[in-house]
């Protein structure tokens, strides 16, 4: 891994896009979810699973990254479309804003998740980037 490949604060630009990550809500995820949060019926995907998928997309879309980034705040807007276990969630990740304040590197990442043409979640991850 070359040092210059790491996503550092200076490389982010508002409006930048990082592509779309497709994540299947497969039986392994279902089992992991239930290990932590208890039973989850087949017919309804917990909205929290969309949050976990959002994090996976955000992490997979922006690599490699420095160690020690901090997730500081979050907005989430869920629609009334309810995905199911087994669906594939397509999640687009973008940079919305960046700001250096009091020596900390704040970056806002936009998230938009959909199942086929149906938007299920949008939101903003507000991070303190490590370097």
């Amino acid at each position, binding site marked *: 891994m070359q040092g210059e490949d790491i996503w550092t604060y200076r490389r982010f630009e508002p409006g930048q896009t990082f592509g779309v990550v497709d994540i299947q809500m497969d039986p392994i*995820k279902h089992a992991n979810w239930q290990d*932590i949060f208890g039973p989850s019926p087949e017919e309804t995907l917990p*909205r*929290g699973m969309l949050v976990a998928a959002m994090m996976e997309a955000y992490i*997979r879309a922006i690599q490699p990254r420095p160690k*020690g980034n901090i*997730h500081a705040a979050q907005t*989430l*807007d869920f629609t009334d479309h309810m995905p199911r276990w087994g669906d594939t969630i397509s999640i687009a990740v973008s940079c919305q804003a960046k700001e250096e304040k009091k020596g900390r590197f704040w970056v806002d990442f936009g998230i938009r998740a959909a199942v086929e043409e149906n938007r299920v979640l949008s939101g903003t991850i507000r991070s303190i980037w490590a370097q």
Partner: protein
Amino acid sequence: MSFPATLKTLTLETSSATTQAYAALSHDYNPLHLDADFAATTAFGAPIAHGTMALNLLMQAISETFANQPIREHLDIRFSAPVKVGETILAGGERRAGEADIYDIWVRKPDGTTTLTGTLHIEAVS
């Protein structure tokens, strides 16, 4: 549609096992959560639970409160204090005075420390 005064309160005991499971679930293998040696070099001093694991406990509390009701949810939260792996957390919320559909939401430790705080706006779908 009327909304209850409080959300159902849920509890989760965090542990290395739940942290490992959540790392696999979210693909978040940040060493802050999993590597005690790395975490010891940070301001946290020890591994901390994933913020969104706490958020998802709150999501579960919301889901159980409004089970089977068609709603849209809008959340605006911030993570206000870390949760060290091994600590217990509670998630819940109260409807704001004078508001029909806005809740003050939280995740706390048993000692009252707030680790996540924010607002939830519930929108009924007709």
